[in-house]
């Protein structure tokens, strides 16, 4: 059976600009992945719950209006729930000087405006495979 990545595309915090998250979700789905898409303003606890119950490989957080500043809280909550092995990516408007804040917290990659959909799809597929292998190894 071919491997089918499972991805959660969501937004935390207050921002509601969802053009980007919708387009990314559609591109991942069109690339054959299973996509769980939520409305904006998810509580961090809700994202952790969906990630666990749906057993997603990758979590994509879209942030256009400074919500990336609370992504480190999300990373902490995922680790506390034993989901530290999931891959988290962030897309949207993140100033250069705040990218390290996210990477240091464990975010795998930050996609800026203008990123091509192919680039996002490739990254997510490879990340999902890595996550799967890790979890299989961990048994």
């Amino acid at each position, binding site marked *: 059976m071919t491997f089918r990545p499972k991805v959660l595309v969501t937004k935390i915090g207050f*921002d509601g600009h969802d*053009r980007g998250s919708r387009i990314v979700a559609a591109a991942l789905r069109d690339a054959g992945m299973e996509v769980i898409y939520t409305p904006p303003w998810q509580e961090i606890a809700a994202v952790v719950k969906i990630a666990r119950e749906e057993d997603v490989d990758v979590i994509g957080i879209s942030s256009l209006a400074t*919500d990336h500043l609370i992504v480190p809280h999300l990373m902490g909550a995922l680790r506390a729930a034993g989901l530290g092995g999931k891959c988290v990516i962030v897309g949207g*408007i993140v*100033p250069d000087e705040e990218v390290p804040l996210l990477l240091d917290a464990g975010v795998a990659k930050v996609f800026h405006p203008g990123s091509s959909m192919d680039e996002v799809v490739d990254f997510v597929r490879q990340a999902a495979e890595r996550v799967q292998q890790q979890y299989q190894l961990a048994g």
Partner: protein
Amino acid sequence: MNKAFESPLASSSPEETWSQEYRQQIGTEPAVHNRSGIDVRPLYTPKDLDGTDYQRDLGYPGQAPFTRGIYPTMHRGRTWTQRQLIGLGTPQDYNERLRHLLEQGATAISLLPCNSVFRGYDMDEVPVELLGTCGTVINNVDHMDQALAGVDLAQISCAMNDPTPFTLLAFLLVTAKRRQVPWSAIAGTSNQSDYLSHFIANHMFYRLANAGARRLLVDHIEFCVRHLPKWNPMSVVGQHTQQAGATPAEAMAFTLSAAIQNAEDCIAHGMHPDDFLPRFTFFFDISISFFEEIAKFRAGRRIWARITRERLGARDSRSWRFKFHGQTSGADLTRQQPLNNISRVSVQAMAGIFGGLQSLHTDAFDEAISCPTEAGARIAVATQNILKEEAHLTDVIDPLGGSYYIEALTNEMEERIEAVMARIDAAGGMYQAVEAGLVQRMIGESALRFQQTVESGEQTVVGVNKYQVGGESAQPAQPRPDANSMAALIDDFRRFKSRRSAAEVGRALDDLARAAHDPSINLFSRVIDAAEAGVTHGEICACLRREMGFGLPLVAV
């Protein structure tokens, strides 16, 4: 006849000659179409104006159907209001920036609250990292009073991003009362009062279920018509839908359909169209598709003049005027080579100016990187001043009027817009159409289509899919509010809450909750009463969410 001027193809007309020469020299050519999907021909001629009746279709400025502008003097008399959005940090931070702007001669101000305010929360119930990063934290009357300290409320026009339940206006009115400024002198606009646009797209502002927001909006309009003669309670928003991916024609159609919905709701509530329509304003996105945007605004004016008279029954010519604010499109800006955005904003702003706008916000070049920095905001204002005072753009009213292309395109955009409006009418009007997800689906499809044209390279985006250069320009430093002053503000706010009369707050909240279920009471007047009793923004929003339901956007990918 002078032989030298004889056509080489003696039997053809000049038009046929041109057409043949064009086809020979251009070779195979892909179809050219604009963002609204209209095929654009290489040349427009007097034939494209066949059947045009100047008075009926264009008219003089200030005369219906207002195609050439809503006022007789247009930009030659009074250019446009430079309404730059500002908002950051604490009320004191805002006040400093505002007074600086006022010293420089600004007469109109804008207030952009923090995202936590948009979402209906107080500062003590949200992650502190997100406070004041995109707007000013305003949670009670004291905050509004501090934000507008030293400002004469009777002399200034204040546009506030203030969606349902309009707590910022309530705080402003109580502040005016404290300062003994009569409400009849309070001037400004409730930006973002159009809940329909928040439900469809850009869900920053949405917090009540549609039915509750619908009632609050009508009550708010009714209250302003009765008590605030200088206040514009309705700003119908086309900006969100276009930013979310609607084509310019679709965005105009959705906006006009939303305006009809809101107007018909007011009429059903017993108001006369001429009492509230002169207070309707519009707010649009201006993309970089230059001619298309100009035609969009000219067509919108013409359609609104017809609808207000024929469908809504307005008799006062002030009701027919399509007053609009334009904001240059952030979605066209790029993170790559960010200084290029200054050029983009100039072109977008020119489209708005030639489109006949009344008020303009130019985006800062760094908006695709961050919330605007002070340097970025300064250049955005300078761009407006250059266009207004250096470039001779305002010498002539509607300078593109009469252009074969512009007039033909205005007609074609009008047809496109009306076709979309007909689909919405067939779905039962804008309220039903958005509840059913029709509008959201159309936007999603258009957004994806546009993204595909960028990915395929059909639509050039300089620095993104063409002319990329390595080593991007330096990124400006991101301003973040001072953590200490934010912490002090939160402490202050907690003290304020514990000092209040619990009995008075409880009574006001009970009254508000009761009014939410009693349509004979004006609900907005109860919001003002609550604000005066010391109830906070978050408490008012929580009460109404509980009584009227919380609104989530439809999820349709």
